[in-house]
């Protein structure tokens, strides 16, 4: 699905230069469930953002579905992104002024899905994550766990080939966290590629493969046998 070669990301600020990613080489196949772990500040989010094309690497190669996109422009990236990738963030990132339904619908809106089909698909996916009864609510009226379910629904609704999740359970309690992880697992079983950043070893256990980062470098990779 994607392949990173000698990928580096350097942040240049006025005083200091931070190397957030240092020569990363990763291969991820279609249908994998990958967890990225490591101490705070080691570059996990940076890596995920680059994989998700929200940011560009400083150097190195990034092949996505066979195309080299490390140097593609914003418009091309946006196009690939909206067709293939769904995002789940630690801080949910829902739009406050829109209802739950509208937030989820957003992903389809920009994919030119006709209105009727949008409605069906949003309803279906809200059902799937168990939040359908809250469709008309505003995000601020929901609990953190409910909001994250909405975010999951939004990531799913366009049926992307790959879902990226940056600490999706970071703001949730144990039970809520488990629920979200179960949903991700189910999605993976249905064929989605999932890459997830997490601090929780138990949540990492849901993944088949764990990549450990330290100081911008891949230190270990661990595969878990299929159950």
């Amino acid at each position, binding site marked *: 699905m994607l392949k990173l070669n000698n990928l580096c990301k350097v942040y240049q600020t006025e005083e200091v230069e931070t190397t957030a990613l240092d020569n990363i080489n990763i291969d991820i196949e279609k249908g994998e469930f990958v967890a990225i772990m490591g101490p705070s500040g080691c570059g996990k989010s940076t890596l995920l*953002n680059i994989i*998700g094309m*929200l*940011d*560009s690497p400083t150097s190195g190669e990034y092949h996505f579905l066979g195309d080299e996109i490390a140097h593609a422009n*914003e*418009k091309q990236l*946006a196009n690939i*992104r*909206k067709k293939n990738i769904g*995002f789940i*963030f630690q801080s949910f*990132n*829902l*739009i*406050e*002024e829109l209802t739950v339904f509208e937030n989820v619908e*957003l*992903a389809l*809106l*920009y*994919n030119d899905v006709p209105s009727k089909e949008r409605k069906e698909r949003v309803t279906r996916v809200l059902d799937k994550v168990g939040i359908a009864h809250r469709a008309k609510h505003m995000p*601020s009226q929901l609990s953190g766990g409910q909001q994250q379910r909405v975010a999951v629904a*939004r990531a799913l609704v*366009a049926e992307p080939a790959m879902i990226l999740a940056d600490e999706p359970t970071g703001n949730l309690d144990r039970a809520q966290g488990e629920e979200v992880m179960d949903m991700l697992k189910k999605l993976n079983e249905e064929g989605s590629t999932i890459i997830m950043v997490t601090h929780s070893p138990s949540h990492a256990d849901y993944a088949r493969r764990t990549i450990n980062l330290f100081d911008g470098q891949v230190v270990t990779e661990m595969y878990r046998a299929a159950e």
Partner: protein
Amino acid sequence: MFKNYILIALRNLMRNKTYSLINIGGLALGMAVFVFANVLAQYERNHDIFFEKSDRIYTLGSVFSPTANIGVKGTDGIYTTMAPLLKADLPDIEAIARTVQREYLLTMGDRNFYQGIKFVDKSLLKIFDFDYLAGNNTALDDPSGIILTESLAKKFFPGQNAIGQVLSLDHKNDLRVTAVIRDIPKNSHFISSLIINEPLEAIAPLKALNKIADYDLAGNWNNLSMGNSTYVLLPAHLDRQWLEQQANDVFERHASESIKKFTTHLVSRKIEGMNLVLWEVTGMPVLESMVVLGFLVLIIAGLNYTNLATAQALGRAKEVGLRKTMGANMGQLLTQFLVESVATAFLAMLVALAILEILIPIFNDSLGKILTLDYLTLLPSLFGLTLLVGLIAGSYPAYIITRVRPVDALKESLSRGSKGSMVRSIMIGAQFVFSVFMMAMVAVVFFQNEKVKESSEIFPKSQIVTLERLGVEDLLARNETLKQEISAISGIEWVTFSSQVPFDQSNSAFAASKNSGDFAGKIIINQIIVEYDFLKTYNIPLLSGRDFSRDIANDLQKEDSEVLNVIVNELALKKLGLPTYKDAINKVFHEVAENPKEGRILKSFVIVGVMADQNFLGLHNSVKPLIFQVNPKYYQTASIRIMGLNFTQTMAKIEAVWKKVNPDYPIQVQFLDALFEDVFKIYKSMNIALAGFAVMALTLAFIGLFGLAAFMAAGRTKEIGIRKVMGAETYQIVTLLIWQFSRPVLWALVVALPMSYFASDAYLNFFAERIKLPIILIAGSGLIAVMLSWVIVSAHAYRVSSRKPIHALRYE
């Protein structure tokens, strides 16, 4: 502690350079206008205070009865007989002096000048302490003495001592220079009054005018002319009210009932405001309007600032929330915000003063004023103003922000400012209304002026040169010779005489009726005295009938003519109730009068020609019923139509002819083009003032718009980021923001467009020939304003949305 506040404030200003510039620039503009309006008003209200006794000098003016129906509420003078009466009845008055402005041809040796002279009672010199360079305040004791200003003395007698020199008036009477005074400062009503169009340069005793023109020294109850003021000097213990009271008593005792029917009472005025008296008597509160407008502009600039600062403050809600959770107290936060806005106001004031220091000299130069910023006296009020603006404009954002509960602020939803946004939308809408309105009005005024200019082209004005001031016996007698000699010059097509030329703003009219003696059915007809070739010189086409001819006796008016041939315009036919032009030839109409005096001949007019309606006065005037008649006694102006290419040479030849025929009078050349421009100047300056105002309004509105667009885009950065992650393209985000931003703007249009329409309609009603397209101009202004706002918003939205989405997501 306070120093700390200021340091933080300055650091904040430095951090957001763009917004600080916008804030400071906008406020500075508003302050500059406000300060200027007030300083100018103050200047205009404090004229003549350099005269030593200015606090004791008053003038007397008349107030007309509303039934007098003459368009003004009063005048700046009193009947000429009042001064001797007041002097006799009120011994407490220290001095009283009348003045009469006249213009004469002055001759010294072989040089001639037309010059305005103020003829005065000699006591005037006791009232005003002019600055004598030679001679003293007894200069007018000599009934044939004259005082000249320094620059006039230099003009008349370059390099010579003016004292004792003799000036001859109209080649008849001699005056001798008895004193030379320094030029009167520009902030005197003698120079800058709107009534007097000539500055005071020469002063002669009324006794001289009595000798020259039989001026009635005892005065009479007939004559009130503007600019001919009567000045009174009171002893220190008496005041304006006393004078007004006493003067009215005297007026009551002496004036006849019929006078009182016209002039109800007298008013006294302090000398300081005499330069403004025209505005007072015409009921136009010009200075007051200016001050109010200045205040409005300041308010708009203040609103602008409040608007931007509120938006910016809401962006800092999180910071404030955090500070509060950390235990910062309300007072400290409030102080911090207010110190910041006061600091902004101070910087703005500095910029405003810099702007004024640049603009005031330009203003002074172009309008002949000597306005200055006197910092010593202004300092307290400037300081107060700055503080006030800073505190008031800053209080709303400070209030909003400190009201924020920590929990709301931390939830960060406030950065989108749902509460403040209504108020801000209204503010931006109001500004927009103002801008669109101004822009539309400027467009309408501009195009209407162009129209006026264009309709003036019916006369070949660029080919016509006029020679003026021919209405003197000597000159009238030589007109025939002059015409013959000038006609003989090559390149001259036509030479003709008339009582006035196009664009001369004077009306000479009389009452006429279709039926003899029918005064009730009268209409007022304007008459212009012309000579035989007038129609040809001015390209005025005849619809029917013939031009005047030298061979027909009745074409020429003589002393005792009872029947006169005339050429009329179509409107006159219509108003008189005569047939249309085809059948109007040889029809007759009559001069009428209410109570014709014994021996007065009421003429009958025979129509020999009909001309198309033409706007002879031009400009805003409506076309009037008009007749042309021939009467050599009343020629004032010669019109010469020049066709030749060699203009300068032709002009030189014309001047040579004049010198030969009229060696004793200076030639007064005026180009018809220049005459038009002269009258048109009023419209032009109105244009400029309006344009200046509009530019300011627009600048302020767009500063506001710019800032708000920036903040709106910034406040929604995160949302933009999310939408982008969801796959939104830049253009979709730009459209979304434009639409949301357009709402207050579109509402503003709903208000501004009809408002502009009614205002421009009222303005255009003033003109006889109007532009047809005010609606297009108004709609165009609205369109331009909307487009500009869109450009600003899209530029911002584009900037935010075209960056990597991660920047937007990380934005707090």
